[in-house]
């Protein structure tokens, strides 16, 4: 066997002398590792695959990819992203106006206005996913092998290189037996071989990073699946109080029984709530008060429809009017500003007929004809006719309904009758967002795996102890992947119990900086 490297070229862990794989990360380290030994020249294809595999198996490449993704993500936060900017204009109008014509077009062309779905961002992410898979496979198998079949009898030199060491008196027939017993009682798994002993605890901690990686791969695949049709569906619904709207593509419909908004005394909003009823094939199946943070959920756990309180809108709804002649009030009329009826019978003598209605009245500057300026109810104008019981015309009126408080309604009437505005009431719409995202259980599952992996990685410490019976005394060397201080405490206790002493450790081999560590204890 060739002389092995002292330290792993990939992860820098201290290597056992005869190691062919790094026990920490599993990379082949000996020059004659079986993976590398080949009889004949491999084909170009195999060479290419080998090169690609080696590329993705490198931690350096993974770190560079992580940093590149971070930089790309930063770029995406410096430019307003499509769908997140607060403006009604479409991107091709908005960006040139916001950043100037040249820069705006450049940003759109490079994909910086939708960074997180751009090809270059997704390429980096998927390269990292490949790297995660290859790195994990490359290391997991050798690591598992090394942990399951450790070398028990080590050279003395190896023991004397460990960060924590102790010496125990050699007593009795089998000096290693009491040590083995003590270690077993402390939950260690113990091997014996010749004059050597090996024990370890918390092996699971070494598998943690791979658990995290598996979780992250699940998350990445779940996020990627959103691109498939039908996996992630959103419908925005505007529903007036009392109305029912069907959910497109389903047998479901939602009725908004009532939308309420509450405010704090200082005017800040406190509550947005829609009292909703869900209907399936016209049958009522669920009542729920939808609030922000309290969506309505209906359907199987792996892909329910969820309906969120997203927005609300108040628009001028009904104008309340009185029919007057002179100073005498003849009756009341309520004109619907959204879709007024053809005629309103007020008294047996007088009907009000809506000739024409403009919800946002304007005289077209080109033709001089009345038109609607927008789709909003912003400037409602009625052209009315008053009709008697026999159909004879009693008068006419052009009425501009006041929708702002404190503004007088304007009107021009001919004849004895006129409508006089006494009030206006609003029509409330709730803005609901219905979503069904089939990736959610997978994403949450992936996150769960990541968190379990993090617990294993960061809170289960792998402690390894080797001991050699030298005849006159027992030398003990120990190391851990984390929490060297805790290991040292434990070895000290074990050594004292067996009549020995800690010989090497961070408070023993005293340096000025760590002197305080011992003293303060």
């Amino acid at each position, binding site marked *: 066997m060739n002389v092995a490297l002292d330290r792993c070229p990939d992860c820098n862990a201290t290597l056992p002398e005869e190691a062919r794989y790094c026990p920490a990360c599993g990379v082949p380290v000996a020059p004659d590792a079986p993976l590398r030994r080949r009889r004949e020249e491999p084909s170009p294809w195999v060479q290419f695959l080998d090169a690609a595999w080696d590329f993705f198996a490198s931690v350096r490449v993974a770190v560079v990819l992580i*940093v590149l993704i971070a930089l790309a993500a930063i770029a995406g936060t410096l430019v307003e992203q499509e769908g997140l900017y607060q403006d009604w204009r479409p991107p091709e109008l908005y960006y040139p106006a916001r950043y100037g014509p040249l820069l705006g077009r450049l940003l759109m062309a490079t994909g910086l206005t939708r960074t997180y779905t751009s090809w270059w961002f997704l390429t980096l992410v998927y390269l990292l996913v490949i790297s995660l898979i290859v790195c994990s496979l490359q290391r997991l198998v050798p690591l598992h092998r090394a942990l399951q079949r450790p070398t028990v009898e080590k050279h003395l030199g190896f023991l004397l290189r460990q960060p924590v060491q102790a010496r125990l008196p050699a007593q009795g027939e089998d000096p290693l037996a009491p040590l083995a017993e003590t270690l077993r009682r402390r939950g260690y798994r113990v091997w014996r071989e010749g004059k050597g002993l090996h024990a370890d605890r918390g092996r699971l901690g070494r598998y943690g990073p791979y658990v995290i990686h598996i979780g992250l791969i699940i998350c990445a695949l779940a996020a990627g699946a959103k691109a498939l049709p039908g996996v992630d569906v959103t419908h925005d619904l505007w529903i007036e109080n009392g109305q029912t709207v069907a959910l497109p593509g389903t047998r479901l419909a939602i009725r908004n029984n009532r939308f309420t908004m509450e405010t704090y005394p200082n005017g800040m909003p406190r509550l947005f709530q829609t009292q909703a009823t869900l209907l399936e094939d016209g049958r009522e199946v669920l009542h729920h008060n939808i609030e922000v943070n309290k969506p309505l959920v209906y359907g199987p756990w792996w892909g329910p429809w969820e309906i969120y309180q997203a927005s609300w809108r108040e628009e001028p709804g009904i104008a309340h009017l009185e029919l007057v002649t002179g100073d005498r009030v003849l009756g009341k009329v309520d004109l619907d500003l959204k879709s007024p009826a053809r005629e309103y019978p007020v008294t047996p003598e007088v009907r009000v007929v809506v000739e024409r209605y403009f919800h946002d009245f304007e005289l077209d500057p080109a033709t001089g004809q009345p038109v609607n300026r927008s789709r909003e109810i912003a400037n409602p104008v009625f052209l009315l006719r008053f009709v008697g019981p026999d159909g004879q015309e009693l008068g006419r009126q052009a009425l501009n309904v006041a929708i702002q408080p404190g503004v007088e309604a304007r009107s021009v009437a001919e004849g004895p009758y006129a409508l006089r505005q006494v009030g206006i009431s609003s029509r409330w719409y709730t803005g609901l967002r219905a979503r069904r995202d089939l990736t959610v259980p997978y994403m949450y599952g992936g996150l769960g795996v990541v968190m379990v992996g993090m617990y294993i990685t960061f809170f289960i410490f792998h402690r390894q102890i080797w001991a050699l019976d030298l005849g006159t005394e027992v030398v003990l060397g120990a190391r851990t992947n984390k929490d060297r201080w805790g290991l040292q405490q434990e070895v000290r206790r074990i050594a004292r119990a067996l009549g020995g002493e800690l010989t090497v450790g961070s408070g023993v081999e005293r340096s*000025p900086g760590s002197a305080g560590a011992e003293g303060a204890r």
Partner: protein
Amino acid sequence: MTASHWLLAVAFFSYLAASILYVAGFIGQRRLALAAAGAGGQVTGVGPGSTPAAGGFYLRAPGWAFALATLGTLAHAVGILARWQGAGHWPTANLYEFIGFMSFCSMVAFQVLYRLYRFPVLGALATPVTVALLAYSYVFPREVEPLIPQLRSHWLVLHVSFAALGEGFFAVAFAAALLYLLRTREAEKESRLAGLALESIFWFASTVLTFAVLAYLLRYTLGQEWVIVLDRGVSRYHLPPIIGPAGSAPGQAGSLFGLPLPLVAAPGWIKGKNANTLLFAVALGTPVYYLLRRLLCRGLPFREALARLAQGLDADLLDEISYRAVAIGYPVFTLGALVFAMFWAKVAWGRYWFWDPKETWAFISWLVYSAYLHLRLTRGWEGRVSAWMAVIGFGAVLFTLVGVNLLIVGLHSYAGGDL
């Protein structure tokens, strides 16, 4: 509510006293050690009885400092509970509450790590960072605001508290990594750029502190306010408006020493008020940095003076403490800032991920710490390269918390984006 303000003041001054004691004790001990080494003596452990009388104060100082820091942490905890009681909601809903909470978390992280390592220098690192954070929280309006519907959720407690706890550990990791960088610095080999980068951390810290003190004085002590009325609304400045909001006219807000206010109006895509604040922070922080350098370091660059103090510290131990802080903070941060954030986003907005600037920056911070954890395992990139990563990571965390709210508009903008 008043009780909470008083308790926080107690906490602040305890932390301040503790950090002064820690730093004084640390420097004193270093001097003694150097003197002893010069006299051929051997420095032994720090413990009662084994100390020369002259150095007794310095040797006992870390003990007192620890007691003070613990007292401050307890007062802070009670203060947070009192504010919870008074406000009727968990007090992490605006920047004042959140940054105060985060400074509390950095003290919790310090207590945890101190229990693991019993390393007094840790106190000299963690308490100044906590003082700086808590001081910075006073820059923001202290009024309790009722919760808007989006924030009325139990996830507010879980998401924000866990994120802040993770960030508290990152703060300690940052401090240890910075000390590691100073300790392992080799002045002869340091390139100009590397030196500037290291020094800029201290410049930045002085700028932030100056600005915090200034803003606090103007807001609470002098009560000065400049009001600029525009068509779109009213802009209230607590610092003289050199840069006015977009659309304001020069001289609209009066003048200061003959200088018309505002002097210029900001272009449309910048928040004029925050640009103005930034201008003041840089303009005043730089002379303060220079002044501190003259007074504290005898004109030497901070990195030079502090590197001398750091000589003799166990670099490996500093590296390990920094790593350990990240190793605890990283899973907690992942849970709070990413996992719980996704759960909440799903419940509140219907999607677990939006690429909103705030969550993107939390993700970026997470990536930086992921890179840090892998760098430490890579030959040639462990040590200083990964220590720099821990420093950069904390920079990303701070930008996530403050920078995003101040500079970038997004879904989280209700968290208080104005100074």
